[in-house]
Structure formats: C-alpha cells, structure tokens
C-alpha cells in the first residue's frame, strides 16, 4: 500500500534537518529511518540508488530522495521527497543569511558542531561496516574496494569516473568464495 505524500514529505524533511555535510552524511540517516524503522526499502536498494545518484547530475542527497520517493509514490512521491529534503535547508539558510550570520561564530554552537562532526564520522564507519557485510563477498569485490579507496586517497580520480570503472568491472568474473 502506498504511503501518503505528506508522510513522505515529513520524513524527508526530518532527515534533511539531521544531515550535516554532504550526501554521504545522509546515508546512515536514510538507513536507520527508511531501511530499519519504516522498512520502505532494503539495504541493497538504498545502495543502488546511492550508486546511481553518484553519476547522475545534481546533489546526491536529492537524487537519493527522488529515487526513494518515486519508488513509494511515483512522480508525486518523487516531488514530495525532494521538496521535503530541501525545505529545511531553505528555511534554515534564509534565517541564517538574513538574521543569524553573526551567531554562527558562537562558541557553544562551534563545540556542538565539533561533536556532530565526530558522530558523522562514526555513523559513516558503521554504515560502511554494515553494508560491507552485505555487499562485499567476492574476490573481485575486495579488489574493487581496495583499488577504489587507493585511487580516492592517493590518486586524483573523480567519483564519477570511479563509479564508471567499477561498473565496467561487473563484466569480469567475480571469483565468488565458498560453495556457490
């Protein structure tokens, strides 16, 4: 049964508020809210939307929201999810830009952001660990992961190029471990 558009909007609004930083910071929130709490999508689907959202134009968080909204409620769900995820930004940034810019230097706020940044790193580590257990199984998977990480940290490869290279690796044998 499809969920209501209002529910889609409200849920993405809530997730937008708690996203600090880029689209990657949103992945742990999408996972705990949409995969674990609401059970709207599976972990595999979430990762698929993220992979595709990486090489489609625009903001990754918006691409992922659009995908999930479409799966739940077609075109109107896509619009509701996108408007939901951008609404907090519009409200908060307009408030900050118009009235509160001087408060951004506030020491307590800076300490709070310091704590939030640490929690975002911890959330990313745990989400990668969970998805690793589900998605990294074959020798080829290990190789792609290690090469990708090496290229990102020491090479100068764009995310889009990396995803395209990984996609091409889908056509080489995967050397699945175990009895399968």
């Amino acid at each position: 049964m499809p969920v209501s558009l209002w529910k889609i909007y409200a849920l993405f609004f809530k997730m937008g508020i708690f996203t600090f930083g880029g689209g990657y910071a949103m992945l742990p929130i999408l996972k705990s809210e949409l995969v674990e709490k609401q059970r709207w999508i599976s972990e595999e689907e979430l990762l698929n939307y993220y992979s595709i959202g990486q090489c489609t134009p625009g903001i990754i968080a918006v691409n992922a929201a659009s995908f999930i909204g479409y799966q739940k409620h077609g075109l109107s769900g896509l619009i509701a999810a996108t408007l939901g995820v951008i609404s907090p930004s519009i409200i908060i940034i307009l408030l900050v830009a118009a009235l509160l810019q001087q408060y951004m230097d506030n020491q307590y706020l800076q300490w709070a952001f310091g704590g939030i940044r640490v929690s975002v790193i911890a959330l990313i580590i745990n989400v990668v660990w969970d998805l690793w257990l589900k998605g990294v199984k074959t020798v080829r998977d290990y190789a792609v992961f290690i090469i990708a990480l090496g290229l990102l940290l020491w090479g100068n490869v764009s995310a889009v190029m990396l995803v395209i290279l990984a996609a091409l690796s889908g056509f080489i044998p995967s050397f699945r471990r175990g009895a399968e």
Partner: protein
Amino acid sequence: MIYAILAWEFFKIGLFAVGGGLVTVPFLFNLIDAYHWFTAQELTDMIAISQSTPGPVGINMATYAGFKAAGWVGGIVATLSEVLPSMIVVYFLARALNKWHENKYVLQVLTAIRPAVLALILAAGWQIARESITDYKTAGFLAFLVAAQHFYRKSAIVYIVFAAIVGVVLKL
C-alpha cells in the same frame, strides 16, 4: 529579470555538477566574475556556513548564493532550479530501473559498483576525520561512538543530538 537569470544559472549547475554538492563549488565561483552577486570572500564564508548548518551542503550553498543575489525569493528560486534537473533525470532513470532491474547485465553492474561506493563513503568520512579528529579527546569520543552505535542500535538522529550535547560539554 534577475530571477530568470538565477533560475537559468542554477538549472545549469544542477545539470552539469555530477558527483554531489561540493562539485557545485567551482560553478559557484564562476558566477562571481559573470554577475558580481557576491565576492570570493563572501562565497568562501557561505561554503563554510553551509557545511555546518543542517541540510545537504549542496542545497544550503544554492539557497545561500541565491539569497545573496536576490533576497529570499532568490534563495528559493536558486534552490528549486538546482534540483529540477535531478528530478527529471531520476524520474526517467527510476522508471528504467524498475523495468530493467532483473536484467542480468544491469544486476551485474549494480553489484559491481557497490564496493566502489562503499570506498567513496569511507573516503568522505576520512576527509571529515582529517579536519575534525585533532586530539585525544576527539579520537576517544570517535572510538566511543563507533562502539556505542555498533552495540546499541539507535537511530542515527539520536546519536547526532547526543554528540552535539557532548560536544558542548567536552568543548570539542
């Protein structure tokens, strides 16, 4: 008609910035020379604020830049224009994916991309860590949070609120 110019410029950014919010930064710098809506110094401040305020950083920057150019209506116009290309492209891709998701080659490609996307996410975490894990206090708190999240499965939102409070208490 500044709103039409804003809409066009941010539509183009949304269409050509592939790979997420920070990819839009060079496009925003290009606007400085073309329109003088803001200075490079102002844009640098806007990016810093967008990274620490709630919301995806790419959206925050679009709203902020639009506001600087043409007030609050400008902020809304810029943001909506930047997400419009995403919505159109994802609409057609999602339809195609639903039709083809059982296709052998599509499955092969999607499965193959996963480890690379995990590497991308981990590398993003590494980037944040390089700037935020600066002493024993932050390193210890990170270790504590990783273990806590692993053993106590609470929503990510609970941990973000908790970390903000701890950040103030411990002066992180």
